[in-house]
């Protein structure tokens, strides 16, 4: 039985996108990073703004606010860097957030069949019911088989 199949106390990171708050399970969160330079290059994945450099790693910036709240972020303060499983490896994405994040412990109620795909569960915190995000559903992802090993990879 997976952790989402029953109510379970979990560590979660609360994040703010405009006026709304969402949560990610803490085990998906790597760090909260200050805004840094976004590098842009030609591509065709509209959800990706560009990439940032973090500890030598290239991390794509994926603004999920419009998808989740209907509005693009006009102000951003941090990047919440999260990990998702992609095939046999972890793939990192930077989510722009508008406020400081908060680590909490809360009972997570699994998502129901009628919930939107981006909802992995629900938590209740300070009188507010907050969606726990399904990172796979809310960020774009190439199918693992399209990700070939690096040809003539250096290093």
């Amino acid at each position, binding site marked *: 039985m997976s952790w989402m199949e029953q109510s379970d106390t979990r560590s979660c990171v609360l994040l703010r996108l405009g006026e709304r708050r969402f949560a990610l399970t*803490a*085990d*998906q*969160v*790597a*760090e909260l990073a200050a805004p840094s330079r976004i*590098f842009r*290059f*030609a*591509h*065709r*994945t509209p*959800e*990706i703004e560009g*990439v940032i*450099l*973090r*500890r*030598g*790693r*290239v*991390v*794509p910036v*994926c603004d999920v606010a419009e998808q989740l709240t209907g509005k693009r972020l006009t102000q951003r303060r941090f990047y919440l*860097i999260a*990990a998702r499983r*992609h*095939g046999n490896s972890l*793939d*990192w*994405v930077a989510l722009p957030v508008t406020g400081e994040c908060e680590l909490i412990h809360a009972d997570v109620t699994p998502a129901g069949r009628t919930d939107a795909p981006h909802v992995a569960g629900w938590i209740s915190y300070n009188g507010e019911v907050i969606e726990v995000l399904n990172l796979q559903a809310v*960020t*774009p*992802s*190439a*199918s*693992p088989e*399209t*990700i070939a090993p*690096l*040809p*003539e*990879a*250096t*290093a």
Partner: protein
Amino acid sequence: MRLAPPQKSPAARTEQIILFRASTQIFAMSSASVQEVRSVDSLSGVAVAITEATLPKVQHAIRRGDRNLYVVNAAVHFGLRPSPAALVFLLRKSRVALLVDGIEKMMTMSRLQALPGAFCHEERAWYRGLTVLDQNVIPVVNPLGFLTSEQIALLDALSGSRSFTESAGAAAADISV
């Protein structure tokens, strides 16, 4: 969860790359993939105009030996605003000649990072990966990603039906954007 630094192999291999400009952006390509660099002017008499509505990035072909090379406009290929191109890269072991604005510089790449999995469209074929040079992230172009074998077959059929070699003199066109 800590963001672990990328693993480093003990013996780093390096690769010579050409940084080139297309429209407003900088790209990298392995210098081993480039057989020849020519000015656009030097090809203006031998390039033949070719039009295939589904491939607007190809507007010229060059006869080399017994086959055609197809000139791909790099800016159009990458969905960028076309800009005046000055150079053509004739790619090694390829049917593609790449029209670019200019060469920025030659550099050595010591590390190629995979394109993150969040990139999930055509860019997966466009790039071998990303490299970091002077604190800039540069996409490293996949020389095989400009034309598929089906597209080359389509262009061959198109140019073959126009008896390419015989009409080359009459249809010779200046390469421009």
